[in-house]
């Protein structure tokens, strides 16, 4: 009952957020919202950029890469040097090179894959200046790319797609910071920790034990972690930790924070291309995919855990509760993790390794679809728009015209760029998982043998190449092999998609617009939303069917029943 109530509240709140935040973001990226101009203007002076001068896609991409490179180096340096820097109450040492590389790349790419337990690895300074800052800017970069692509679709005969520095600044200043600030206060009110006082030392006289309980500036980081679909927890237990996610309310708020921007961006998209219906069609496709995955995962987790049942250990009236918090229950935990893996968040409130095979498959395959339902902040929309171009290309031919999307002819260059943006992820995942399955460095860190071990490897690369960051656990991935290969997967999964998307934005912006008529393939209908879903499923299905068969499918079949 609570589960369904949660869903109703979630949908109702998101509907309001979709409209209001969506419209606000249009104003922000159009430069009409200026209430923080007194902060904004000095920032531009500092960056040496003229906010009125727009960039070509090449300049935009170069600015983005340059910014990312500086970010990566800065993060890496802070992590390596944290032992010598202030705000280190636990007296932690510098982070080792391979792990620093992996972590810097991870936060830079909005992945937040964590090969380390936060409380015993990162100083407060690292958490606040290296990781939290990246949580803000990496999210803003994703949104900027999405907005650049929208501009490409909505402009005609234009050589520019916006100014990267302006988009980056405005995203952080007007959208991410205000919401994070307000929500952090709500989280603190619910019991999330926010302190610089270092760990608490408790002596339990009754039982005669002393405990050291790690604390830190958690609430402030928790909100942006979800709002920016980053997902990197302050603590190792991530959102299952009561200091991060104290109760049912914060659990629901976290879900809402994760979904807000990706969902609202579809409204922003619709408004900026001049037809909200276009945004609704994209949102409908996202929602359909999300619904199917949520349904199947929730059903799977509501079934008893087959291993527990086989051992005859206990009745399982509450579904599979292995690895789940009693506070949240089976289906709500499934909801949280589906939300987290269908966006590029990766923050989880229950352990995926102990999910039932089909529950685990749900979270893994959700990422394999390219994270478009609704996906990460910005990245979900721009990837979905690439899918839309492919859907239009194939479907458009079937109405007897050379295909066009929003009045833009889709020709060889657009097809090439969209295909790269969509196909680079599966290729990266499969090649790296293939390497890891044969090399001893890849196979030895798996805790389980057979199909489950394979699922762990496959999950790790799927999560990283999709910039998700959730972990299946069961894979001791803090090795040089996994740190380096994972870092590679994250970099490719981020930038080899962003650059083609920006090129696409440039190519589309330069095009003229063909007015729509009765012979035009309409992209604001249920039929198109259905076609879009089909294309996402077919691309994901065709590329991952064999790999998934050998992991979770075999596991599920081994238990004799498909569900449970």
């Amino acid at each position, binding site marked *: 009952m609570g589960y369904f109530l949660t869903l109703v509240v979630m949908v109702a709140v998101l509907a309001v957020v979709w409209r209001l935040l969506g419209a606000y973001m249009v104003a922000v990226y159009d430069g009409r919202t200026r209430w923080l101009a007194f902060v904004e203007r000095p920032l531009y002076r500092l960056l040496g950029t003229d906010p009125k001068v727009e960039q070509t896609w090449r300049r935009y991409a170069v600015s983005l890469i340059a910014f990312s490179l500086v970010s990566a180096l800065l993060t890496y340096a802070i992590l390596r040097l944290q032992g010598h820097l202030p705000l280190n109450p636990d007296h932690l040492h510098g982070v080792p090179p391979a792990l620093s590389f992996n972590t810097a790349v991870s936060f830079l790419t909005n992945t937040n894959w964590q090969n380390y337990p936060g409380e015993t690895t990162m100083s407060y300074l690292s958490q606040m200046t290296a990781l939290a800052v990246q949580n803000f800017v990496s999210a803003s970069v994703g949104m900027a790319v999405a907005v650049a692509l929208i501009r490409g679709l909505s402009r005609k005969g234009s050589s520019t797609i916006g100014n990267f520095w302006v988009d980056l600044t405005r995203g952080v200043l007007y959208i991410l910071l205000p919401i994070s600030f307000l929500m952090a206060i709500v989280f603190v009110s619910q019991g999330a920790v926010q302190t610089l006082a270092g760990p608490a030392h408790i002596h339990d006289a009754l039982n005669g034990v002393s405990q050291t309980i790690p604390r830190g500036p958690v609430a402030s980081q928790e909100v942006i972690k979800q709002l920016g679909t980053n997902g990197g927890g302050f603590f190792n237990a991530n959102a299952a930790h009561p200091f991060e996610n104290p109760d049912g309310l914060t659990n629901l708020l976290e879900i809402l924070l994760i979904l807000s921007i990706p969902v609202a961006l579809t409204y922003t998209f619709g408004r900026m291309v001049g037809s909200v219906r276009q945004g609704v069609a994209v949102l409908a496709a996202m929602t359909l995919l999300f619904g199917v995955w949520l349904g199947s995962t929730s059903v799977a987790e509501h079934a008893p855990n087959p291993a527990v049942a086989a051992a005859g250990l206990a009745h399982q009236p509450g579904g599979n509760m292995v690895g789940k918090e009693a506070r949240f229950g089976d289906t709500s935990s499934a909801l949280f993790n589906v939300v987290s893996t269908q966006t590029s968040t990766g923050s989880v409130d229950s352990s995926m390794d102990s999910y039932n095979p089909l529950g685990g498959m749900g979270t893994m395959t959700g990422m394999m679809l390219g994270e478009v339902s609704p996906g990460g902040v910005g990245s979900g929309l721009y990837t979905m728009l690439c899918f839309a171009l*492919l859907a239009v*290309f*194939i*479907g458009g*031919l*079937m*109405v*007897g*015209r*050379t295909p066009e999307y929003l*009045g833009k002819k889709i*020709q*060889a260059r657009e*097809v*090439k760029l969209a*295909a*790269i943006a969509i*196909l680079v992820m*599966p*290729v990266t995942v*499969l*090649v790296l*998982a*293939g*390497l890891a*399955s*044969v090399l001893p460095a890849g*196979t030895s860190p798996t805790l389980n043998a*057979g*199909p489950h*071990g*394979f699922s762990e*490897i496959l999950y790790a690369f799927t999560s990283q190449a999709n910039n998700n960051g959730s972990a299946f656990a069961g894979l001791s991935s803090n090795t040089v092999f996994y740190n380096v290969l994972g870092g590679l997967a994250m970099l490719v999964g981020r930038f080899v998609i962003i650059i083609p998307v920006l090129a696409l934005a440039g190519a589309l912006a330069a095009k*003229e*617009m*063909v*007015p729509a*008529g*009765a*012979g*035009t*393939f*309409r992209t604001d*209908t249920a*039929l198109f939303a259905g*076609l879009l879903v*089909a294309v996402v499923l*077919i691309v994901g*299905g*065709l*590329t991952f*069917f*064999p*790999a998934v*068969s*050998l992991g979770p*499918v*075999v596991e599920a*079949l*081994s238990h004799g029943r498909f569900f449970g």
Partner: protein
Amino acid sequence: MSAQPRSSDQRAPESPAEAVDTDRSSPAQAEREPRRAAQPRGLFDPSILVPALGEAFKKLDPRVQARNPVMFVVLVGTVVTLAEAVARPSAFSWSVTVFLFLTVVFANFAEAMAEGRGKAQAATLRRMRTTTEARRLREGEEERVAATELSRGDLVVCEPGDLIPSDGEVVEGVASVDESAITGESAPVIREAGGDRSAVTGGTKVLSDRIVVRISAEPGQTFMDRMISLVEGASRQKTPNEVALTILLSALTLVFLPVVVVLEPFAHYARGSVPIVSLVALLVALIPTTIGALLSAIGIAGMDRLVQRNVLAMSGRAVEAAGDVSTLLLDKTGTITLGNRMASAFLPVGGHQEAELADAAQLASLADETPEGRSIVVLAKQRFDLRGREMAAGYSFVPFSAQTRMSGLDVAGRHIRKGAAEAVRHWVVEQGGQVPDELDSIVTRTAKAGSTPLVVADGGEVLGVVELKDVVKTGIQERFDQLRAMGIRTVMITGDNPLTAAAIASEAGVDDYLAEATPEAKMDLIRSEQEGGRLVAMTGDGTNDAPALAQADVGVAMNTGTMAAKEAGNMVDLDSNPTKLIDIVEIGKQLLITRGALTTFSIANDVAKYFAIIPALFTTTYPQLQALNVMRLHSPHSAILSAVIFNALVIVALIPLALRGVRYRPAGAAALLRRNLLIYGVGGLIAPFAGIKIIDLIITLAGFH
């Protein structure tokens, strides 16, 4: 489009007799099904089928295959399985090798079939292009040279029975020419020096009179040469959409490579192994071979369908653009209306009876052989049962002349005249008669209704007005409704004044019209449509149409037109039938739909192939995966082989569809998409499940395990 309405008097030159200029747009020719240069052939005509089989093997040359990335991968895969079959022979590996090889052969066969149809037509044309001797004029002296030695600017003489040696312009004389070699139309046409009918085509035959022709084409570059190379597909280049689709297909092929290759390491992790033959089989089954094999055949067949309708497209790009056209510029005369005016009413003036007027008009028209004249006789018969009379000796006809702008008849002291209002008015006054006041208002009213008023007078007495109506072709309104449903706007182009144009436009049901059209106005209209992002198609024949034809995205030149027009357009209609523009658009759309449908079908097929092959690959490693063997295929080997056989046979099965094109009914985009998604998407999902199962049953019965 709101110029001052011209008074009807200014329309005088359009008098009946002058309207004989129906050489190129007579209703008879437009409606008649002409004999074709391109003979329609059965889909599997043996004269095409047999050479195509040979071609299919010749095309195995890796250099040819490299142009098609999808099929190239299949060829490489075949070589790999062949090596494996030779090294470790087994019924399975040999069978897979044979069917992979056949997949490539079938793809080549599809292309060869499409090309074969064009080649057969080219051969017919080539037979007609016999090596001609030319009579070249050099400083007034005639000399005999081979036609191939003629170069641009040479003057040649042609007399009855001579084949015109090369393309050129008549600079002297007038002759009737048999152009059936090119158009298939046996009725001779007039070619004369000066004006829009001066172009002659090499290979056509002079029937009467002597003409001097200035050669305008270099040897090997004549219209006939180009026509042959076009139907042969020799100069075929990939069209923009074909290039884009090839990129998508290559990307899919490229992606399936790692998908399949990593199965070996994945199997290794599970302490198993996958035989290379099975991996290659899976790869070939997954990559979009169906569309990859048929893509070029679809393109060639689209051009061929145009040739079947006697339209030559200079490039595949033009055919593709035809599918995208959103505005059609249609000439009124010949396309929308029958091309000549028909008498529709007798409007008497000055107290005369309608029958009296009809009688006089009929008399004046008895000797008038123009369609307008005849239509008056017909109307008189219908209305008042006035029969054709015996031509008595006293009848003296007054033929139409450009000076008088009237025609008529003098008999028994009566002087009956019919003609343009202004001319007849003058004549009546000269005869000492009176012009009734009401005449002007009737003339104006008639002109406003889109008709031509013809005034009839008997001596000094004005009898009344015969209304000549521009007759809109039957069924044209439905065509325009269909076009509107397809999202295509029709614009009527006419030299008429805006009032007349508006009346006809509303009767025919076009979306817009351009009245008093000049070449400049036409050009401006095309430009303004294109600025809005619309693609424009038009027809034209005159030299002054050439700039507009060049500017239009699809410019269809009439074969009767000037060389300049033919050079400027990107299609030539050998029948010179402007209505065909609509067919051309439909063929363009059909071509694109066929491409999209087969791509969808090809990709949808993969689902079933996965269910056939994946369980088979891992039978020993993970017997549990047999649960995915939903088709209950006999054995791992029969499952894989069945998928490969299906994959090969489906190409052959779809060749007719690729050549003929998917059925196209004019409809809105949503209806088309729903229908095609259902047939080729959902159908493509289901069909291979049945197909693979049946093949599995057959090969199992045949003893394959």
